[in-house]
């Protein structure tokens, strides 16, 4: 059943009695062509594109909790394509293009809001590095432009241009970047996949991965054994544990990233503003809350919560950059588990076990990647060949040193990306 304004009108006039479940709750079958471990954004989009692009619909998505309960439901909802290293550039470029048609594709309003993102810089050196990035984005065919302080003052009049600790020299803007309603992305993909015949199975935790002669044969779950020709591990936040079930030790360290939202306020911040030097970024949700975040808590953690030093540091960055938010009140804080990789870039690859695929290591770039990640992972699962835009997300790059994508230039220490 399609969603539309007319439908909302019709239902409204007839007591809203005609609405149906957005997706089916399926009970596990004994065998599937593909089993996807993880009902988060990436798992659901992978299932959707398997069905839509490759006609593979005998697919189960196994979620230990509720759909979209992981990082897709606990992030700062930013969508952008402003990476500059080969590998990342083409991948995020592709993902952004998918975002731009997602609502029509899914018939679900994920509220993609291309309000523009501005990355500020605070020295000549930072300007040069940002220019290199902006030109790489343009070489990739995406939009980027340098904004002078004058242009910034017109666009972001509320920044402190006089007193702030690290003076603002300008900004790199991507107009096509913006935000989206994070939960809706998961629900929209779930609905789309379900409508195409994919089984979405909640409260079903995978406890083992069955292998025979170097080939994957299925999974053990809290709801029984399920045979599968192919299995994909798409469980950012728990990648190391699930991979261990298949005897793998991953180049991943799990860290907590906190995010914050204030009480609802009338519109005051119209863009996504990133203050890299202060590890601070902010936007305002359509409901009026200021949604913002900062750096990792910096210690390995699965607790989905953080501590005060980072909370305070984020607020301090906000106060030096845009002191007009001082009287906005922090309403809620939460933490997500980040798969931190040694170069800050993700992994979409086959494994040594035939039929077993891996999608992990998104650090904190996972949300904007949801469409592209699912698209490329589905391609890899269906065709056994790498999808061009994600071809560099190989697992062996750390051993060989080939094609590392260290955007931050901070090296192999997992938590520095």
């Amino acid at each position, binding site marked *: 059943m399609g*969603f539309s*304004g007319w439908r909302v009108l019709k239902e409204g006039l007839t007591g809203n009695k005609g609405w*149906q*479940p957005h997706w089916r709750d399926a009970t596990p079958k004994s065998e599937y062509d593909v089993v996807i471990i993880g009902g988060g954004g990436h798992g659901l989009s992978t299932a959707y594109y398997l069905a839509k692009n490759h006609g593979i619909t005998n697919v189960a998505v196994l979620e230990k909790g*509720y*759909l979209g309960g992981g990082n897709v*439901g606990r992030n700062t909802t930013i969508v952008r394509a402003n990476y500059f290293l080969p590998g990342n550039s083409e991948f995020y470029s592709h993902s952004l293009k998918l975002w731009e048609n997602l609502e029509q594709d899914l018939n679900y*309003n994920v*509220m993609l*809001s291309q309000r523009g993102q501005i990355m500020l810089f*605070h020295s000549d*050196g930072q*300007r*040069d590095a*940002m*220019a*290199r990035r*902006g*030109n*790489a984005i343009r*070489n*990739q065919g995406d939009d*980027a432009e340098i904004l002078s302080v004058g242009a910034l003052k017109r666009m972001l009049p*509320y920044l*402190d241009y006089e*007193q*702030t*600790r690290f003076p603002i020299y300008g900004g790199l803007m991507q107009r096509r970047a913006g935000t989206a309603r994070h*939960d809706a992305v998961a629900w929209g993909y779930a609905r789309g996949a379900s409508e195409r015949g994919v089984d979405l199975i*909640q409260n079903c935790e995978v406890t083992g991965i069955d292998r025979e002669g170097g080939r994957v044969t299925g999974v053990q779950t809290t709801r029984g054994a399920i045979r599968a020709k192919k299995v994909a591990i798409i469980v950012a936040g728990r990648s190391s544990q699930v991979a261990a079930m298949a005897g793998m030790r991953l180049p991943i360290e799990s860290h907590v990233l906190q995010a914050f939202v*204030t*009480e*609802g*306020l*009338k519109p005051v911040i119209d863009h996504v503003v990133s203050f890299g030097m202060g590890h601070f970024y902010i936007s305002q949700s*359509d*409901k*009026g809350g200021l949604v913002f975040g900062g750096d990792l808590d910096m210690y390995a953690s699965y607790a989905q*919560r953080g*501590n*005060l030093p980072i909370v305070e540091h984020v*607020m*301090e*960055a906000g*106060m*030096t950059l845009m002191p*007009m*938010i*001082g*009287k*906005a*009140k*922090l309403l809620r*804080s*939460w933490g997500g588990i980040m798969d931190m990789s*040694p170069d800050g870039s993700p992994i979409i690859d086959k494994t040594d076990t035939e039929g077993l695929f891996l999608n992990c290591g998104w650090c904190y770039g996972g949300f904007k990647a949801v469409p592209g990640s699912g698209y490329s992972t589905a391609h890899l699962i269906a065709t056994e060949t790498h999808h061009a835009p994600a071809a560099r997300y190989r697992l062996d790059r750390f*051993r060989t*040193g080939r094609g590392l994508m260290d955007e931050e*230039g901070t090296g*192999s220490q997992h938590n520095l990306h």
Partner: protein
Amino acid sequence: MRIDGKGLIDRRKPISFRFDGQRYDGFAGDTLASALLANDIRLMGRSFKYHRPRGVLTAGSEEPNALVTTGLGPAQEPNVRATTLELYEGLMARSQNRWPSLGFDLMAVNDLAAPFLGAGFYYKTFMWPKAFWEKIYEPVIRNAAGLGALSGEANSDKYEKAFAHCDLLVIGAGPAGLWAAMEGARAGLDVILCDEDTQPGGRLNAETETVGGMAGAEWAASVVAELRAMGNVRIMTRTAVIGAYDGGTYGALERLAPEVAQRPGAARECFWRITAGQAVLAAGAIERPVAFRNNDRPGIMTAGAVRAYLNRWNVTAGRNIAVYGNTDEAHRSVRDLQAAGLHVSALIDARPHATCDLDVPFFAGAEVSNAEGRQALEAVEIRTAKGVEKIRAECLAMSGGWNPNVHLTCHMGGRPVWDRDIAAFVPQPGAVPGLHVAGAARGVFDTAGCLADGRRAARAALEALGRKAAEVDLPEAETARYDIWPVWAVPGKGRAWLDFQNDVTVKDVRQAAVENFRSVEHMKRYTTQGMATDQGKNSNVAALAVLADATGRGIPETGTTTFRPPFVPVSIAALGAGAQGKGFAPQRFTTSHDASVARGAPMIEAGLWYRPSYFPQAGETHWRQSCDREVQMVRRAVGVSDVSTLGKIDIQGPDAGAFLDMVYTGMFSTLKEGRVRYGLMLREDGYVMDDGTTARMGADHYVMTTTTAAAGQVMRHLDFVHQCLCPQMDVRFISVTEQWAQFAVAGPKARDLLTELLGADQVDLPFMGCGAVRIDEIDARLFRISFSGEAGYEIAVPARYGAALFERLCEMAEARDGGPYGMEALNVLRIEKGFITHAEIHGRVTAKDIGMGGMVSAKKDCVGKPMAARPGLSEDLREELVGLRPLGEIKELPAGAHLFDEGAEAMAENDQGYVTSSCYSPSCESVLALGFLKNGRARHGERVRLVDHLRGVDTICEVQDPVQFDADGGRMRD
């Protein structure tokens, strides 16, 4: 309406204030809410979505409706709870989220469109036409949403942060908390007692109970007086503990009393980081509303709030009051109201078995099914076994029972457990290590029980601390049993509110369930229930109950309630106190700072440091003029530059040389005494971390220099290598960056200048030599090194002489047609020479990339050497450091531009490299650049295309050796 009675307001201190421009009067001790009720104002706000008229629902920080904006301009503060806002002279409050006025709000049309605006409607529409979302739909939604507004002006108030430490933190100063504090204090603990209210006592301030033979509030005051007198107790009122964190750390927000906050230098709020050995959570409970049709009408309040306004503030929302409840609390309300001479038009007790000994129209087993009156309650419709009847009332005191304040026990992932007897969630035991829950927060609802439970919790804390409890007698207090008949939502037509502020009704939750948002997390996210400013304090449990009913599950099977920090919203200014303006990061000033400023130099940030950009002279109107002059000055005469910001590390010990061999690619154990060597430091992953020179001052004594940017990282790295990789090495090191003020003296006349300063014998150093020297009896160090490519020295003196030496060096240089030079010139000088900075060693380059592969000693291991051998770093064609010069018409080579083969299209697939640094070189009379180019070293002399899309540059340049001036380095060695 204000009535007689002995509450906690001071009728001798009248206070005038304004609400929506209108002047009113109240008393000291009032909150804005109590003062408005005293002035018969019942309409205080509008709801988020439907803009329904709303009055005050509660008397505490959980208030969802009565939110106002205070102050003007930079002082404007939105979403202030009228229920906790202390009245003060001159207070100006404004209602929110309405236009044009609170009484007449055009956005209230949303209420009529409600059938189309149900839960999640926006996910199903606004998708066509595509372009309309950003242009039309979203702006409309954004403007309708939100509550109060920020002024957009920079905060102008002071906020502060502080740390506190104690043995026992007691959270909440009601009976349980007061007694827990007493037990802890008597046992000799350092105690901190926090309460968000202006005065301790909790519910005792709102009820007509006696404790220890006194009125409850008096007893509380007497306990507080006793605690204060003991000296080991710190009582923090107006302080809400907002979060429980690891290791016994708690966050707390203190609002300073208005009269204190107005003093010069005072903060409005202070955010406390409290570290406690043990803690007692005695945060009480919050009364829950009942969902029935139109239960959001102004005048409908929780019964506890009605009693609080009556007993503490002596105000009432009406003369005719109906009381609706499902416990004995309802009867308590009637008793208090009648005692105050108010008319109770009905007592509706949901419990079929209830009896009543009061003189009041009594309905057992009945329910309130509807409310009448739009902007203020006029009547309630009650449904009994006999049928439906209407009862006049301007105020309804409703109670669905109480929810223990379990919030802090959820902050570390604890999940509250359902207690069937009290039909509420209670804390999961041990959810927060070292936190003991007591009193109503644990579901103990009578005063005697709370006192005893406070004792129990305190003694548990004492035991954990290994301390003995003191013998203290519990005071007499009322006991009562809690007999509840759960009522969540009254069946019937129309909309019944669960989440008042976000306009989430019973219908919405049922609709969500139908659409398969059956998990409580899905329901919340789909309906936005619990996401308003009260964070679900008033609605979580009832919404869960409704969802359970809609999905045919029991409440515990359906899920639980949880809360994340903060317990109450906290201003960003408090959490970020001290950081506004320059406070975000400490500032570091060199000894020559004032002299540079005096010479008109613009000072620019270099990490935390400030360094001079250039030294303008009369007639120079553009930085380039100054920069070019300073470059030529150094090339032709002599320049002086403060290089003190570079990291300096003093390294001593028998293994100092071996240690340096481990951290540098090159060999330092073989460096001769009195000599300096350039060193390259790798990260363990094989990429370049930092570079700098290291001097051997003595047999076992080296001085290492690092770049300004990496000084901290290098010290951390050295400590790591020593402590974690080779602790057997006998070496000691310490930062001497701040001990020595160090100045570069560079140029053909540098030697002449230093000869005058030090005498010829002291200056007689070979290139890359170093030694101790004396200037007027002052011990100094001289290094013959150069970052400019000229004959150069760096001279270091104890920092106390830095300012004076800089002045003298400048004078001596000026006497030789030289003078000081700044960062801009320094940058040009090093680009001309192809010397690298972190613009080049940006964390992704190898020693080989920058042409220093040969510096990785084959004779020894060093950090980073094994991983630098990875094929991707050592074998493949990589981007290598090159120099660039313009050939085309356009004479710009902007840093950040990318490089392509001549004639190739400027697109990602063709990318060959990029420019890292660029300048105009007066020495070469050309723009010069450094950059990285694929296989660049093999391509000197080639023409490449340079494209900067961002700044519209597209030109041809020639690839060169990075060293574009004085290639053989003869000038340095002179």
